[in-house]
């Protein structure tokens, strides 16, 4: 028997039992749909976080006292500006080290108030991080040295406090003290769920006086090339540990951050895909079940076909093709719905679902394999039926 004949025969059998075929496919459709959508969501989240991290800049090493915690300022720090100067000597290029001292404060312009993140930093910020300006200028060395009350606003803060008015040269009140706006940053988006457009940057020295502290939260070092990152990281940590024996300092590179977060989110995507895969497997069991029913129901037909000259492999092929058609047609419908679902999620929610071709190919491949795997047992049973017994079946 030719392949095309088996194919037509199987399609005909599915058509005859339309409702049953559709319900059997539903299991596979839901499984494939789940795989495509969940992998899209997982991959989208991973891509978004990776973009955020690489959007910070290149070859960055973050140094904090104690253990590194993402998205929150460490509670205790003993790093002072003197320590920063020491790290600058260790690094060799003072311009490639910048500092950070963070605090949440109220900003007011006229009657407009907002609670924002104030970050005390210095003129080297832009040597380490990517922080393009929309207007005005960055903080300068003189601003830091003379503790000027000047501020550079994140784009959202500027828009909220000043609306359409150009904030440069105007006054803002930060924790009750008056500051002059010297610049506005361009929009950069979020990192770890915190919007960097809601920050206000002031000279670190001014921030220290305002908060009454002489510490900084941490510092960041920019290596001149990717090959230097690791050596520099080791040197900075060793130098700080030597200065404060028995204390712990963490230095993490952007690559390490990307790797850690990437593997966590990759694992998450894998878990989601596995859960979806289980539903695909359940769909496959449904196919197997229905095929067994179908073989039993059509025992007489199988006996007749064998009497008329169908070989074992003809009958096997007929039922196997039926099973594979069930799962692949179901798979194709599931892919269409899954892609539609991912596009809908991306359009109507904040979740950045990314459709990946490998998940579509995998889902389709798996549904075909499920068809073969779960179709083979019923098809073999059909193929091996004894024609004499089968013809007598009721």
């Amino acid at each position: 028997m030719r392949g095309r004949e088996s194919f037509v025969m199987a399609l005909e059998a599915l058509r005859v039992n339309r409702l049953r075929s559709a319900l059997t496919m539903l299991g596979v459709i839901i499984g494939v749909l789940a795989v495509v959508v969940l992998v899209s969501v997982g991959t989208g989240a991973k891509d978004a976080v990776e973009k955020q991290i690489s959007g910070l800049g290149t070859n960055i090493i973050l140094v904090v006292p104690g253990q590194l915690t993402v998205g929150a300022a460490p509670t205790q720090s003993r790093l002072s500006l003197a320590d920063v100067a020491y790290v600058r000597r260790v690094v060799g290029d003072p311009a490639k080290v910048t500092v950070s001292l963070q605090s949440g404060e109220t900003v007011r312009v006229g009657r407009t108030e907002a609670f924002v993140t104030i970050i005390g930093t210095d003129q080297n910020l832009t040597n380490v991080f990517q922080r393009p300006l929309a207007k005005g200028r960055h903080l300068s060395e003189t601003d830091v040295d003379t503790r000027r009350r000047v501020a550079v606003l994140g784009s959202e803060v500027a828009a909220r406090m000043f609306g359409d008015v150009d904030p440069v040269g105007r006054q803002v009140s930060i924790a009750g003290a008056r500051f002059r706006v010297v610049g506005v940053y361009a929009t950069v988006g979020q990192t770890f769920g915190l919007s960097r457009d809601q920050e206000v940057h002031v000279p670190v020295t001014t921030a220290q006086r305002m908060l009454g502290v002489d510490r900084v939260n941490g510092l960041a070092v920019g290596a001149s090339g990717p090959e230097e990152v690791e050596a520099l990281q080791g040197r900075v940590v060793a130098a700080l540990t030597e200065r404060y024996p028995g204390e712990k300092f963490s230095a993490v590179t952007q690559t390490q951050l990307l790797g850690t977060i990437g593997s966590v989110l990759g694992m998450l995507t894998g878990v989601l895909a596995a859960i979806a895969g289980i539903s695909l497997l359940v769909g496959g069991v449904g196919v197997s079940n229905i095929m067994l029913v179908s073989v039993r129901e059509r025992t007489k037909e199988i006996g007749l076909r064998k009497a008329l000259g169908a070989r074992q492999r003809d009958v096997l092929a007929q039922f196997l093709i039926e099973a594979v058609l069930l799962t692949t047609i179901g798979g194709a419908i599931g892919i269409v719905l899954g892609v539609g679902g991912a596009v809908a999620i991306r359009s109507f929610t904040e979740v950045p679902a990314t459709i990946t071709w490998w998940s579509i190919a995998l889902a389709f491949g798996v549904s075909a394999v499920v068809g073969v795997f779960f179709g083979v047992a019923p098809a073999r049973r059909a193929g091996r039926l004894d024609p004499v017994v089968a013809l007598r079946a009721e």
Partner: protein
Amino acid sequence: MTAPAPPAIEAVDLTRRYDLDGVSVEALRGVSLRIGQGEFAAIVGPSGSGKSTLMHLLGCLDRPTSGVLRINGVEMSGLSDTRLAELRNRTIGFVFQSFHLLARTTALDNVALPLVYWGVGRAERRERARTALESVGLGHRMGHRPSQMSGGEQQRVAIARALVGEPKVLLADEPTGNLDTRNGTEVMAILDRLNAESGVAVVLVTHEPEVAAHARRQIHVRDGRIELDTGAGGGP
């Protein structure tokens, strides 16, 4: 220089034993017979006599426990299941008591079914199926499904299906068993005519003497043995 045609069926000392729940049942106890090309024979006997078992063996649906069976000169005991299927497909035609037509399939496609397994292309299949249907007087019923036809018509479709591959042997198992007298007579008339015209050997299994009377030769089976054969030794 062609060799003389071998007999359509040649059986030597066939036995068939079933094991049912550890009990051995001997359905055939040594049957030998020879049916020549174009012969018309009836196997008759009461139910339980072993005639159905014999029929299954002659149709290569089953294998004998011992003995030799040649269909059109081909010894079947050495054949694989696949070769046996091919033998059924090309050398043997079946007609069953309950017709066994595919329910949701037209008469034409039902008749063409054996040719699908032969590997005949669609256009040729339809052409040959049409010819076969016309030969049983159903040229006007080709697009009908079994449910739209009378029992007699369904059995004629089944006869057309048995003949479409131009077999050497036609095995008919109680072909009139599910039909009323008029339709039964009609079906038997067709079998008579086909046997006369196409030269296919017809082997009829029945327990009705009037049906068996259509055959020139009667083989009586009882208790798994041939009790009486009115034309024993047929063939060369």
